[in-house]
């Protein structure tokens, strides 16, 4: 299925999964840990949410399976890794741009200070 070009805002789960995969391929538990770390513990993603989101992101071509391999930091069992596709990278950039636009707009209207907006990102 081709990546969706609709500029629909991503859910927090999808956004954080894209963010987690932005710096390299990861397996399910690594994604879960990264999301928790990136959201400073505010988003505790359960298994159901993780794999439900992964299913839809695979279907929409945002991510792809990158094969099974060992994680040297965990036990000796193989885990399935996921990687960002070009479509996923583009969706992530679009979403980031949307956040930046909103932040700039807030700044322009003096709703909040520039520093706090940037810190919030």
């Amino acid at each position, binding site marked *: 299925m081709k990546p*969706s070009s609709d500029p*629909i*805002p*991503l*859910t927090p789960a*999808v956004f954080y999964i894209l963010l987690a995969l932005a710096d390299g391929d990861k*397996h*399910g*538990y690594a994604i*879960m*840990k990264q999301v928790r770390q990136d959201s400073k513990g505010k988003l*505790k993603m*359960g*298994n*159901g*949410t*993780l*794999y*439900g989101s*992964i*299913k*839809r992101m695979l*279907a*929409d071509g945002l991510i792809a399976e990158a094969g099974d391999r060992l994680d040297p930091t*965990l036990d000796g*069992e193989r*885990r*399935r890794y996921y990687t960002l596709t070009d479509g996923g990278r583009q969706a992530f950039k679009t979403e980031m741009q949307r956040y930046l636009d909103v932040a700039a707009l807030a700044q322009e209207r003096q709703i909040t200070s520039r520093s706090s907006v940037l810190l919030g990102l």
Partner: protein
Amino acid sequence: MRPPPKNPSSGYRFYAFLVKLYPPQYQQAFGAQMLRTFQDYYASVRQEQGRVPLGFWFSVIGDEVAWIAHEQLAALAGRREGMIRSSFNGKQWLVGVIAGLALVAAAMISYSVILSRFAVLIPLILLLVAMLGMLAIIIAVLGKALATALKSNHFARPLEALVSHWRIEVALFGAIILPVGGYFGALAFSPPTEACMGKVIAPSAPAAQLVTAQDYFKQGDYEYDQGNCSQAIADYTQAINLNSQDAQVYNNRAYTYMLLHQYDQALSDLNNAIAIRPDYVNALMNRGDLYNYYYAIDHNRAIADYDRIMAIDLGNQQHTQVNGHMAFACFFRGDFQPLMSQPDETGPDCQLPSQP
């Protein structure tokens, strides 16, 4: 699929059970990965905290239940979509409206009949069939709507996707509001509280004079047959004032109270009638029905009253009637065997000892 660990923990086994609740295709695609990830997560929580807190399980169960429901609905929607499209050709709304109206009508008729205390079994079955039919159509319509919603908005949260689609709201409205509306509609059309609704086969004649208890009793029956419940009760009351030992008067006043839905007074009168005449079949039948369907619901007491009737030699027809009500009492209590028995058998007692 990766084999399970050799000595799975109870937590792993429980999570494996949850995974089995997903649709088969989903399990095939993600089941093994989910188990692996859960194991990693579970182990890390135990390592960090020394134990697995209760909050962990609340979080896991809440998350999984929501997604299991979502995936099952999505699977159902996927299966239904083609069938619905070819069957109704885009006229789901019409089917929903017709089915909704049919359900309201069925519910109103059935509830009305039940409330007016006649023939319980057939209306209940009709109501059940109507509701099952409506449920099937709602699932079908819901399935189509879900398929559309889920396909059109992959990025939205599942619940947001569900509630954002108007057809789903309509279907849920039909599923919840229409039966409730039917019930209250039936209440509105149920027997009026100011007149009796008894089917009079042989109307009583009015009393020639009102002197004795028997005169007032006869006059009460006459007023009852004329549909004047309140006056009938007044006459029965006068008869009781003159003679408080006539079980028949208590029973007739109780039955009139029942038609007025004044069940507490009815129960009191029936207790008096049965205290005076312990083998009074009509009063036992009325009290059994009261406990069974209308007031102070207690199926054990209803069964006890029906049992007492069964112990009295009445002839086959009366016992057959009692059998039906007894079967319902047993059914409501959770004993289904009596519903399978033949009407002319000795009578279902739900394995209850007959109570005196």
